[in-house]
């Protein structure tokens, strides 16, 4: 059993027969009052999110889920095909499970796949990916002020807003949580 001090992002717990993962948590302790952990859970099957206060001393049941390191291989219709690097087993996973960041995934990208009862239920991709820009209009000279951006297409086909100085052939770092440009990787 887990107690409140075990709560962290990604912890998998079983509640009412369903597997949940912790997506956010905050320790709360009013002066002279009882402590609890305000915890946001995501249902790994339905994606539904809810918040619960777990009091210090309360117990949580671990969910029988398996986490495997897998490599993204290729796209196939609405699915993405992954391979387990230890036994070369391949698994098809629906794009819906990955969400908006799927178009930032390049071949061989290392990912973490969560299985509940042998079924893939969650895919975590790296927070940052490094992709080459394959198409983008040149920036207008002189307009170098801070927040001006232009669209750019990267090697996976995804479109990302980038600063004006980015050119075709540059490699850029992208945050997969926000789909946003972070920085240019130095030449």
């Amino acid at each position: 059993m887990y107690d409140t001090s075990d709560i962290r992002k990604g912890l998998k717990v079983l509640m009412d027969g369903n597997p949940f993962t912790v997506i956010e948590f905050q320790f709360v302790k009013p002066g002279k009052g009882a402590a609890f952990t305000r915890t946001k859970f995501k249902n790994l099957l339905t994606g539904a999110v809810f918040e619960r206060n777990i009091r210090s001393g309360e117990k949580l049941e671990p969910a029988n889920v398996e986490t495997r390191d897998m490599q993204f291989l290729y796209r196939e219709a609405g699915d993405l095909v992954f391979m387990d690097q230890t036994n070369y087993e391949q698994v098809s996973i629906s794009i819906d499970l990955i969400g908006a960041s799927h178009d930032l995934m390049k071949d061989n990208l290392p990912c973490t796949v969560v299985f509940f009862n042998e079924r893939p239920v969650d895919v975590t991709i790296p927070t940052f990916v490094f992709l080459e820009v394959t198409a983008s209009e040149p920036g207008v000279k002189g307009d170098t002020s801070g927040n001006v951006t232009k669209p750019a297409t990267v090697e996976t086909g995804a479109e990302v807003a980038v600063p004006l100085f980015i050119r075709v052939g540059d490699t850029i770092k992208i945050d997969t949580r926000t789909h946003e440009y972070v920085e240019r990787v130095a030449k």
Partner: protein
Amino acid sequence: MSAAGARGRILAVNAGIAIIRGERGEVSVRAQPGWQAGDLVDDLTVVRAYDAGDYPGPKTEVARLPRPRLDALHGRAQALTALRAFFAAREFVEVETPLLVPSPGLEIHLDAVRAGGGYLITSPEYQMKRLLAGGFDKIYQVCKCFRGGERGPHHASEFTMVEWYRAFDHLDTIMKDMESLVHTVVRAVSHASTVKIGARTIDVTPPWPRLTVREAMKKWANVEIAGDEPAADLVAKVRRADVKVADGTAWDDAFFAAFLARVEPAIAALEHPMILEDWPAPLAALAKRKPADPLTALRFEAYVGGIELANAFGELTDPVEQRSRFEEDLRIRGERNREVYPIDEKLLAALAEGLPPSAGIALGFDRLVMLATGAASIDQVLSFTADEL
């Protein structure tokens, strides 16, 4: 340089962190278990690369503290200097009391950390009161305190407390001290009378607005607190205000359910600091009750932009009532399966000898530094968090 497909040689490796010089001379840092210095590596994904001329030297990205953290730690040092000057100008004596004690704070909701056959203090309160009984009038202390299991944006298990006491003086004087101290420290660090909380700017110039706890609970939670109602009655009132509480909830838990759901978010959203005073007697802790109103304790708490900054008491000086409160707290701790600590008999003896009428306050120094530097988390104002050790 293209990120993928680069090649290089590992210059140095320690604990899985490698410094690599790529084939074009750029130096980068990355982690890969199993690498050894001298290995030739292929297919580097460069996490952060420097041109050879920019290489920052032996302080790698791994050892180097990020800029905002360095700035916050400089701010922390300025805050400490300003704080000591503040108390020196008011002729307070700085004291140091032991951190390792046989009897830690007995508060119901705090867990002490065991060390060396005793406990680390959860607050220096008991020993500082013994100094007041021993003849000091105005004392302050800046020290580490330890509270097991506390970890959050405003909490660290090991943190720094500022406590000060005035013998023969009133809680109002302590309130004025607190407002001026915060204002002085904020000005010393940020050169302004305002603090930044996210997008908000909050002016901390004294005096700060005040409300009684009963007014605040009525205003924001729509709960009328008597202070002597049975727990079940308070649970019913809290439920009528649409806050969920379980049957059999204790008085203080029912209070905090409504307080945290309604009052604290409202105070956190204010564009100014707020002092909540006159706490209901069941939340008196070590505070004296008001002589003319025994349902109310001489206690206040100060909040700025969602941060609970300080808690102050008109100190309980009656050894008989103090003992009965200690015993009650220990009884509740036992009921809730929490460790039952020994009572500090030396403190009770000092009260019996005669603690002058006093007022005192505990202020979270890390939280004050958060305000002064605009940090969103306590982690940003600590040299190293527990996770970084």
